[in-house]
């Protein structure tokens, strides 16, 4: 295995390989959803699974997301390991009651006598020029629901490893796949096993400040850190990988080293996962901080139409502008000074 050469592959292909390897490894695994059979999924993540494993193991369902997730609850109760695909982030909303009231709670409601291990795969977030209802960052809804694990990969190797781990997990996992990274490619050795669910990773070490990101925001943070070198900042990047459970230990260790942190998320910021991360870091690292933890996020607007999405999405400039406000000269941030009475 150690001699397997790295090959250039995409996140989409890595996810496809993870599903195929899970189906081959465990008879209990079944993959289903809308268009996942003959078509191989609208993003081709299930490509070839029907042909290889047959329509008992990989099958299309009626077009009904609550039905798909509810059906998976019953299958999991019978001892199977369902992996379901929601076609797009916003199309998963009809399933939310099933997810919040049943998937997340069955273990707890029954004192552990029933459990419903399953993976709910959700292609999420934007940056692909999608029309409305195809680009939502829906992670906060799931992260705010106790009983769910919420995982999102940013690299090809993590996509494979985390999906295999999610399928093996005894808890239900909402597996959020950043659409804009599906066709990003990298050298990877598959099957890859990186780390278990719940571990963040330091993607780039830095001395001056730490950028904390997950999923689609990780490449943005890495690009910003690279660009920051020209401005004289040495920025580190932590990829959370798992939103629930959250790896406080890795994140806070990095922030304590640098004393400054910016949370970068693509999602709208208000009441979001970025707010939670910023609060956790502030609570845990107060005495190590030279500046408040700042956030860079999407705007608090419904996801915009394709021709305007670049204004919404946090990019390198918005990240660097925020880094510039990390109290380098210990002056109040003018944007947040109280307005003077009578001032023009």
């Amino acid at each position, binding site marked *: 295995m150690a001699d397997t050469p790295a090959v250039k592959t995409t996140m989409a292909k890595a996810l496809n390989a993870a599903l195929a390897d899970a189906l081959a490894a465990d008879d209990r695994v079944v993959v289903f959803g809308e268009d996942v059979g003959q078509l191989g999924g609208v993003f081709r993540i299930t490509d070839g699974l029907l042909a290889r494993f047959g329509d008992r193991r990989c099958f299309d369902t009626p077009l*009904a997301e609550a*039905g798909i997730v509810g*059906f998976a609850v*019953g299958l999991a*109760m*019978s001892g199977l390991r369902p992996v379901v695909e929601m076609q797009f982030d916003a199309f998963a909303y009809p399933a939310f009651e099933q997810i919040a009231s049943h998937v997340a709670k069955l273990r707890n409601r*029954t004192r552990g*006598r029933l459990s419903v291990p399953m993976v709910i795969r959700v292609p999420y977030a934007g940056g692909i020029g999608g029309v409305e209802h195809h680009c939502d960052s829906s992670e906060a809804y799931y992260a705010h629901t106790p009983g769910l694990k919420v995982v999102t990969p940013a690299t090809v190797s993590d996509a494979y490893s985390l999906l295999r781990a999610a399928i093996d997990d005894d808890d239900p996992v909402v597996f959020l796949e950043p659409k804009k990274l599906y066709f990003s490619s990298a050298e990877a050795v598959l099957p890859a096993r990186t780390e278990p669910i719940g571990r963040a990773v330091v993607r780039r070490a830095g001395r001056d400040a730490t950028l904390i990101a997950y999923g689609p925001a990780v490449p943005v943070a890495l690009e910003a850190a690279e660009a920051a070198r020209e401005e004289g900042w040495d920025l580190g990047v932590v990829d959370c990988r798992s939103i629930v459970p959250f790896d406080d230990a890795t994140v806070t260790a990095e922030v304590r080293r640098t004393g400054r942190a910016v949370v970068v998320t693509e999602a709208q910021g208000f009441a979001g996962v970025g707010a939670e991360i910023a609060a956790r870091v502030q609570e845990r690292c107060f005495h190590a901080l030279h500046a408040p933890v700042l956030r860079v996020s999407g705007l608090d607007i419904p996801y915009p139409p394709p021709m305007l999405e670049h204004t919404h999405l946090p990019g390198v400039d918005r990240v660097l502008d925020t880094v510039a406000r990390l109290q380098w000269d210990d002056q109040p941030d003018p944007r947040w000074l109280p307005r003077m009475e009578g001032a023009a």
Partner: protein
Amino acid sequence: MTTAPRAVRRAAPRSRRSATPTDPAHALLPAVEPVRMLDETGSRLPAHPDYPEPSTADLRELYRRMVVGRRFDVQATALTKQGRLAVYPSSRGQEACQVGAVLAVRDTDWVFPTYRESMALTARGIDPVEVLTLLRGDWHCGYDPAARHTAPQCTPLATQTVHAAGLAYGEAYQGRDTVALVFIGDGATSEGDFHEGVNFAAVFKAPVVFFVQNNRYAISVPLSRQTAAPSLAYKGVGYGVPAEQVDGNDPMAVLAVLTRAVAHARAGNGPYLVEAHTYRMEAHTNADDASRYRDGAEVEAWRDRDPVTRLEAYLRGAGALDDAAVAAIAAEAEAYAADLRERMNLAPAVDPLSLFDHVYAEPTPQLREQREQVRAELAAARDTEGDA
């Protein structure tokens, strides 16, 4: 264009299965009238062509469990008034449905109840204290669903119909001949999940019996606001699911129709939909005031259709039940209620730290932190009590 189906329905003979074989939809339609085998006085109606009479032994067992079930229901209502239960949704008047349905399935079959199925669960043999755990409030589900093949009582309406479809499909997938019996009410048939559950079961030919207890009201909202269908059983045809309607206060008919529906599903023919016409004699729960939305005359009229007295009259007439047997069953019911009362009067043990158990298979670091915080809060509270 609405006249055509009407004409078909009017033309349907008592046994629809022999008629118009060229129309595939026709075989799925319920009989025009609900199946009845006993009239309101307990007299046997003419033999039904599709439904053989259940055995006397089964009918006696049905009667016994209905009497015990009714006593349980009365006791649970009393416990609510005494503050032992947070709330109790009574199923008084629905005894034939509650007990008849669970008698029609095996212990290895799965039952998917709602919050109103406490009586059905006790009739299934589950400890009544475990059944009432949800309503007492010391935990959510008190019984072991895996051991009893019984899902937790479901509060979000109709959501369990899809679970039943998945469970039934998963069982068949793994080579087991399990049937899933799912209870829902008339109001829940308006929920999208009812549609999705029946449709999934039909498409995947899952062995599910959807049992709709049409008790005329969803809390206060009458059936006329739930549907414009001729009756709820007609919802089956749109999904390709055969359906039947039954007099839900006729215990013999409920058992016969459910037995046939379960056999249909177990034989690999896919799901079946049964609508039972019945009536909730009590308010929605103890917290509800039914006089605000239905009048006393309506309730009184249903009292004359009581399922327990109907079956008792039939069994007495058939020589299968006498005064001594009735008294023995009544005594058993009293003992059952006394035991329940006694055990419910004991305060249940609750452990605040158990709140952190079973949220995940293993607690997350964040839950371990919160557990420590609560442990410290509890210790501090104990110290304060000690000082006082």
